[in-house]
């Protein structure tokens, strides 16, 4: 079995927690480390949360690196649920994992350059503002060469925005970083709100997470406590778990449909952070991303619940050799 070697660039965050735990339960994926960035919550809180999440999995071989505390150029904006801050110990128990010494940008630069040398590329799952990745890309041309693919959760097309009327949060929080990533030449798979809004999770699903041991219980606590359903918007109960789609795509690309198109981002004015995709090739520019347009909702739900469930018997699950 060929294993995806991935770095998860993350700002946990509830749905980040689901994505990270999904990856850590999947033998098809080798998580080389987490690079943490300010986004949903301030950097210090995101770092605490990332350590707690890795701790829940029982894994001690996954380093957690702290990265950028704010965006490249614009003023800092936090997530709508920034008030969550560091996860309460009653919801997510504290563990033994501590942040690694090396900063996240240097970690990405080092692994990507190593990958460029050995020809064994790394995949980055980008599920927060992409500041760390942009800061790595500008330092050396081998960084882009060593990254085989960036699977990112970000952007919105027909779905409009959720942080502003026109912008999705991860791109809005650092549009300049998104611009660097989109123009980097690295193959990109993009999970916009258009697709993450399609799969809604409800209390029954959160109950099902509980089968996944300490990890599943903590995840269930988080999603039950911070209800993200928006019936007025979605027309039915339940809330999205955006970030987990990136991990699901690595595991089961057959669950998704996408189109290769040119994608860009607006960097100024009231529409700052707005993404556009040239679905009808009006600009005549080369495609720079595979934009995911549809998902097998039942398949994705089942996959996430099944993988989180594996944490219940985590010790008996085969883990890939490091």
């Amino acid at each position, binding site marked *: 079995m060929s294993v995806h070697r991935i770095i998860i660039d993350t700002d946990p965050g509830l749905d980040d927690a689901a994505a990270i735990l999904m990856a850590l339960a999947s033998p098809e994926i080798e998580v080389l480390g987490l690079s943490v960035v300010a986004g949903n919550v301030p950097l210090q809180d995101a770092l605490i949360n990332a350590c707690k999440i890795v701790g829940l999995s029982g894994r001690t071989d996954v380093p957690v690196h702290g990265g950028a505390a704010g965006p490249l*150029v614009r003023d800092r904006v936090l997530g709508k649920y920034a008030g969550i801050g560091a996860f309460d110990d009653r919801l997510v128990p504290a563990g033994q994992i501590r942040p690694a010494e090396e900063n996240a940008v240097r970690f990405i*630069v080092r692994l990507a350059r190593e990958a460029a040398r050995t020809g064994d590329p790394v995949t980055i799952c980008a599920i927060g503002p992409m500041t760390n990745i942009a800061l790595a890309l500008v*330092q050396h041309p081998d960084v882009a060469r060593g990254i085989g693919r960036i699977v990112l959760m970000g952007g919105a097309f027909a779905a409009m925005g959720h942080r502003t009327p026109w912008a999705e949060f991860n791109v809005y929080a650092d549009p*300049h970083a998104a611009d660097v990533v989109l123009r980097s030449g690295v193959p990109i798979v993009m999970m916009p709100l258009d697709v993450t809004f399609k799969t809604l999770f409800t209390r029954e699903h959160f109950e099902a997470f509980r089968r996944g041991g300490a990890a599943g219980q903590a995840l269930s606590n988080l999603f039950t406590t911070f209800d993200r359903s928006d019936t007025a918007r979605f027309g039915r109960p339940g809330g999205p778990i955006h970030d987990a789609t990136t991990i699901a795509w690595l595991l089961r690309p057959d669950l998704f449909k996408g189109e290769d198109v040119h994608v860009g981002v607006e960097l100024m004015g009231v529409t700052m952070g707005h993404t556009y995709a040239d679905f009808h090739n009006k600009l005549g520019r080369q495609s720079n991303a595979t934009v995911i347009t549809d998902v097998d909702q039942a398949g994705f739900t089942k996959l996430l619940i099944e993988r989180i469930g594996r944490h219940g018997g985590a010790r008996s699950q085969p883990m890939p050799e490091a």
Partner: protein
Amino acid sequence: MKTIPIIVDCDPGIDDTIALLTAFVSPELDILGITPVCGNQPLGRTVLNALQVCELGGRPDIPVYPGCFRPMLREPIHGQFHGKTGLGNTTLPDPVKTAEEMSAVDFLIEALSLASAKGEPVTLCCLGPMTNLAVALRIKPQIADGIGRVVMMGGAYREPGNRTMTSEFNVLADPHAAHVVFSSGIPIVALALDATHQVMLKPEHVTAFSRVGGRISHALGELMAFWDRNDVARYGSRGGPLHDPLVIAYILAPHLFGTTRARIFVEYESELCMGQTIADWYGKSGLEPNAEIVTRVDAQGVIDFFLDRLSRYAEKVPA
């Protein structure tokens, strides 16, 4: 003697080279490292030039850390007045010295964190686009505490631009990096075109430098002769403006300069005015000043200062 620790962030470049050669023979300065960046030339060339200039100046002991290979957001642009190699028609021997393994960004983070811990802040001499410093600041904002001040060559306030109508090359090449530095809260000394156009390196000066430069006379004369813009209509005389070396002169001989405190800003959105620097001369922004903008320069004093410094290559034992 208590020395001033400096890091020279640069993109050599002819005028960078004159700045470096001057710093090399100034015992008041402790040069912790040189961090070449993509600017006047692509990164590979600015690193090579820095290594060659270290050897020309007899200072192979100074480490050279390769910097960012491109600006933060924009496509790279390169200088127009430095010839094919960045050093005019001057050919220097291939360097024996090699660049450090560590990147400029990692070096800045490490050296400035240490400086902050020791309470011995470093003066950052920025002679090129400020990508390295901006990236380091975004990775670890606390390194600002390890910087005493940034003395930078770049921008154009009352003077028009030199690369576009509004903009000076170093700021235009990475306006986003300039924005990061200007908004960092670090004290800034800005040597913009307003200052550097006051000091023209004229043909008669070049002759004088060629006479005093000892073992670097030949290279120095060639570099300086290449620098002549031959544009009397714009500059009021023959010669070229002594941009980057003024940073070193300002640190060592501040009495030759007059400054005005103001808040400075940079335009990084408009394509027409991209890279334009703006000074809040009359307190319109409601924000505190963040820079000393050099507005007056004693041009003859500066030329004499460089003649004195560079004549030290005649006294020194050849490397």
